[in-house]
């Protein structure tokens, strides 16, 4: 492989670099290479976000800058310490190379479960990927970066669980980045057939805290009839990272999708999540926890689309803000005309630990059916001084009392994880941000 050019001024997102990326993938299905070309052209055609776009209200547009970012050539020399908890299998990507893969238990393989890196999935299960890849697009503002993801994605995973197969332990996918001005484009698909049950936990982590990274990640989460899909995303990029993540959730008849995204890292991190309740009985639980410190900006845009009657969704996004950090939450519930008996809830709760922090909240409803129950709300509060005093009066230091109250604020969400080991591991992971 040729040496990368000196790229502090020019990035890898050029025609030449894209052509080279494609050339390296000539063994992949033709439809895939075509999709990449289309995406690349879309990426070029789409403008960068502009101030007049309501979907970017309050966002720091000046902070979006792709200049100088390159695709890493070598795996990271070391991997960050990630939470440990029992898992069924894992895939680890470091600087866009697969560096670790634990085998799928034979029993699951025999049942038809697939858990493979994206490129392998494209080679061996191309039709499956083709059927679900960006099947339900997310159009909440970051389309340009979603196209860039398709153009350059090579890492990520396919988890496919056939009808009726229930797997208790989580699958784990880890993406790590190391080195200055590195970029990555993970894309993970989770496909659960009827009555299947599985959990996927995905980590997005930088090995250093200061280096700048650029990331655009995409997920396609599909739960067919009666399936129960749990997705947990844990984002802890470096504090100099620009991160975009786009989550597409589709729930069929009586399916349940539980998604929890933990946002800790990034200079500016935008997360878009769109749930589609496609058939009666479908339910989507959308949860997020954010710890924003320094001058970090976390930008969360959500859409809950109720496309069928008797569907329900429950969104709870909680942010803790320190220092001069900023958060933006903009959420919309859409109830389509025939989606009677929809039960939808949306709540954004901000805990302000600093007077200089800024939480923006834009909840919204768009209801075209007449027999529905939809509620939304946003609250912004400080630590209750009476609670703080109560803990201190038991000898707990002000700092620790503060932490306990913040974790208490989060616990409402973490407590919904039914996997106790995962719950404990994530709690410790969040605590590490406070201690650092």
């Amino acid at each position, binding site marked *: 492989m040729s040496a990368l050019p000196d790229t502090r001024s020019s990035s890898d997102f050029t025609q030449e670099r894209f052509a080279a990326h494609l050339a390296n993938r000539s063994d992949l299905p033709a439809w895939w290479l075509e999709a990449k070309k289309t995406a690349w052209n879309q990426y070029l055609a789409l403008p960068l976000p502009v101030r007049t776009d309501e979907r970017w209200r309050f966002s720091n547009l000046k902070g979006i800058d792709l200049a100088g970012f390159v695709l890493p050539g070598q795996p990271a020399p070391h991997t960050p310490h990630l939470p440990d908890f029992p898992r069924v299998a894992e895939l680890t990507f470091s600087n866009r190379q697969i560096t670790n893969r634990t085998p799928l238990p034979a029993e699951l393989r025999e049942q038809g479960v697939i858990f493979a890196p994206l490129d392998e999935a494209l080679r061996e299960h191309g039709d499956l990927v083709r059927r679900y890849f960006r099947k339900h697009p997310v159009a909440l503002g970051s389309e340009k970066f979603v196209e860039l993801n398709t153009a350059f994605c090579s890492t990520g995973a396919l988890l496919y669980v056939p009808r009726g197969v229930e797997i208790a332990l989580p699958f784990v996918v880890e993406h790590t980045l190391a080195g200055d001005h590195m970029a990555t484009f993970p894309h993970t698909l989770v496909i659960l057939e009827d009555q299947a049950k599985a959990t996927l936990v995905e980590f997005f982590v930088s090995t250093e805290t200061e280096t700048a990274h650029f990331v655009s990640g995409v997920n396609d989460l599909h739960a067919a009839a009666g399936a129960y899909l749990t997705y947990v995303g844990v984002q802890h990029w470096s504090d100099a990272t620009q991160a975009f993540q786009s989550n597409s959730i589709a729930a069929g008849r009586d399916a349940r999708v539980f998604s929890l995204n933990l946002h800790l890292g990034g200079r500016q991190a935008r997360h878009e999540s769109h749930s589609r309740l496609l058939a009666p009985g479908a339910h989507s639980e959308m949860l997020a926890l954010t710890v924003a410190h320094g001058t970090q900006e976390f930008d969360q845009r959500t859409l809950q689309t109720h496309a069928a009657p008797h569907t329900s969704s429950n969104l709870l996004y909680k942010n803790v803000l320190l220092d001069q950090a900023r958060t933006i939450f903009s959420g919309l519930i859409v109830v389509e005309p025939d989606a009677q008996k929809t039960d939808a809830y949306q709540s954004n709760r901000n805990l302000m630990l600093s007077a200089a922090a800024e939480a923006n909240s834009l909840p919204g409803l768009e209801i075209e059916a007449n027999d529905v129950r939809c509620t939304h709300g946003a609250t912004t509060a400080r630590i*209750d001084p009476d609670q703080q005093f109560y803990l201190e009066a*038991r*000898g707990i230091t002000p700092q*620790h009392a503060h932490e306990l109250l913040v*974790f208490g*604020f989060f*616990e409402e969400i973490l407590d919904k994880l039914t996997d106790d080991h995962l719950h404990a591991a994530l709690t410790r992971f969040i605590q590490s941000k406070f201690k650092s």
Partner: protein
Amino acid sequence: MSQLEIKDLHVSIGEKAIVKGFSLTLNSGEVHAIMGPNGTGKSTLSKAIAGHPDYTVTGGDVLLDGRSILAMQPDERARAGLFLAFQYPSEIPGVTIANFLRAAVQARMAEGEELDATGYYKRLYSKMDLLKIDRKFTSRAVNDGFSGGEKKRCEILQMAMLEPKFALMDETDSGLDIDALRIVAEGVNAMRGGALGILMITHYQRLLDYIVPDHVHVMWDGRIVKSGDKSLALELEAKGYDWVKKELAKA
């Protein structure tokens, strides 16, 4: 043997003077009751001693074993051996009793010292049994959705676990039915007599039937106006606070 000495204490909330020259010396093993009508400064006294930031000490001193605690932060005072049993304990959603108490116990240990988890739970469960608190409570959030009686039992549980030198019990009987009061009193009585000194603040004599004080003080307008033994509480019950008012007027 420890001593809590409150010397000519003056406390204000904002500009308003509430405690006006309160003096009392409390020794280990003693139970003192402070009685008085509402608004006389009883709760203010206990919160000021615990270090609540809304209360300003404008004069006098509070000494624990000869050392002033007034410059200490609330958590330091607690670790030095003071415990305030709240009249209205805060609800702390998301923080389980087990974690909360473990944090409080750990705060009293030396840096680097590890908590013996097995020993901790053994002790916690035995105290819970004593206070007839269901063990399931350990995984419930502190006071979150508790009944009045549960909150007060939870206060006593914390007191039992933290083994303070001195407990300031602010209206522990309020909001308790007779069964809950009996359980709470049993818990307190099991702790008294040894190294613990108790300052029990109450409006009613009822509590004193269950936790019999060694000394009774009547507080009026921010200070002690009359002291005696448990018979003073009974006299007060019979004659009412107006009796004290008249006595004061005569003097």
